[in-house]
């Protein structure tokens, strides 16, 4: 893999990438050598999987323990009518294989748990959170912080979406925020950087809302095209990360409102009191947390 060369078919397939200075053959090689784990093959995962596969991500893992239901098809466009009743990971893997034979797709038909998160996540360069529940989101956040794994976050509610990127790169936390160009994250470093400029989900939302407080898509409905927009933005972030190009949504939460057709960006910072990435973190292992309810730290 280290001496990967683009063959004639690949030069043709990825020609619109290769022709751009920002990507070129080197950038395309990065994508072909890259690996991404998509957690959730639903509304967000569908467009993300499609575009990551089309982009030629070399290894694409997909985690989901659900089967396709007819009510999914209004938005989960990686699945078709004939897939109803099939495991989502199988249906999604078939789509990827048919779209792009360059991609090694790895379906994981399971639910993410504290017991399996390391085995699933640690084998990939980047994780894309396309899950549909707070327990998985907090578990992914905490594990990715502890292992310094970059994580793309996207979440939806009826007509609204939230997107941000956690680079989880704390190796230069003592520096002045300047990058030397070798950082594969492509972060350009803001002039006003402070130590630990890699905030996480718990910096924004230390704990999840009480169960039942925020209704889910099945209860409230969701605009079918909404996760298409949000999942595509997540895929964009992941591609940029692998290329080492552009400005990531790090320390910025993008809030998309489909009804008002507005995008607002809110900046946020590392919280020194953050329970997982703060100065004196209470969470040193995902075993410290009960990933249910508000995902707070276990009393014992």
């Amino acid at each position, binding site marked *: 893999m280290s001496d990967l060369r683009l063959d004639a078919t690949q030069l043709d397939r990825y020609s619109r990438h290769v022709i751009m200075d920002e990507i070129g053959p080197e950038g395309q090689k990065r994508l072909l050598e890259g690996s991404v784990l998509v957690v959730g093959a639903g509304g967000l995962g569908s467009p993300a999987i499609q575009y990551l596969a089309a982009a030629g991500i070399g290894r694409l893992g997909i985690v989901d323990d659900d089967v396709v239901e007819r009510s999914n098809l209004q938005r989960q466009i990686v699945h078709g009518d004939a897939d109803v009743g099939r495991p989502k990971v199988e249906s999604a893997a078939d789509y990827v294989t048919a779209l792009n034979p360059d991609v090694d797709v790895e379906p994981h038909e399971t639910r993410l748990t504290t017991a399996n998160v390391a085995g699933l996540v640690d084998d990939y360069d980047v994780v894309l959170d396309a899950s549909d529940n707070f327990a998985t989101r907090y578990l992914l956040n905490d594990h990715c912080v502890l292992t310094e794994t970059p994580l793309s976050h996207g979440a939806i509610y009826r007509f*609204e979406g939230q997107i941000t990127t956690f680079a989880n790169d704390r190796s230069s936390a003592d520096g002045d925020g300047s990058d030397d160009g070798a950082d594969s994250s492509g972060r350009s470093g803001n002039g006003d950087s402070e130590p630990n400029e890699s905030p996480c989900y718990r910096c924004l939302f230390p704990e999840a809302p009480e169960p039942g407080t925020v209704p889910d898509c099945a209860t*409230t409905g969701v605009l079918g095209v909404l996760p298409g927009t949000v999942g595509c933005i997540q895929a964009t972030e992941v591609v940029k990360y692998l290329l080492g190009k552009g400005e990531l949504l790090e320390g910025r939460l993008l809030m998309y409102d489909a009804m008002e057709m507005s995008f607002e960006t809110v900046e946020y910072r590392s919280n020194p009191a953050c329970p997982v990435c703060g100065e004196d973190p209470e969470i040193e292992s995902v075993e410290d947390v009960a990933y249910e309810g508000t995902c707070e730290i276990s009393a014992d």
Partner: protein
Amino acid sequence: MSTEWKLFADLAEHAGDRHVTVEASAGDTVGDALEQLLDGRPELAERVLEDGELRSQVNVLRNGTNVLVEEDGLETELGDGDELALFPPVSGG
């Protein structure tokens, strides 16, 4: 002058609207504006407050800046024409 709140996700449903104008103005605090927003909206108050304190997962913005992190929290003074926002996490995928 008055101050406008923008409410995200389920908070808008609890409030009955995505945009709510309150009378708080320059010289008042974000906390004053929040009190006026919650006054007469018990469902929203229950969703946003816990034992009288702001729930940890609800963020308050003033002109796009998180007052809980960047400013003086609910004691932050309002300026003319400030726009405030309340946003919670969402989990749908």
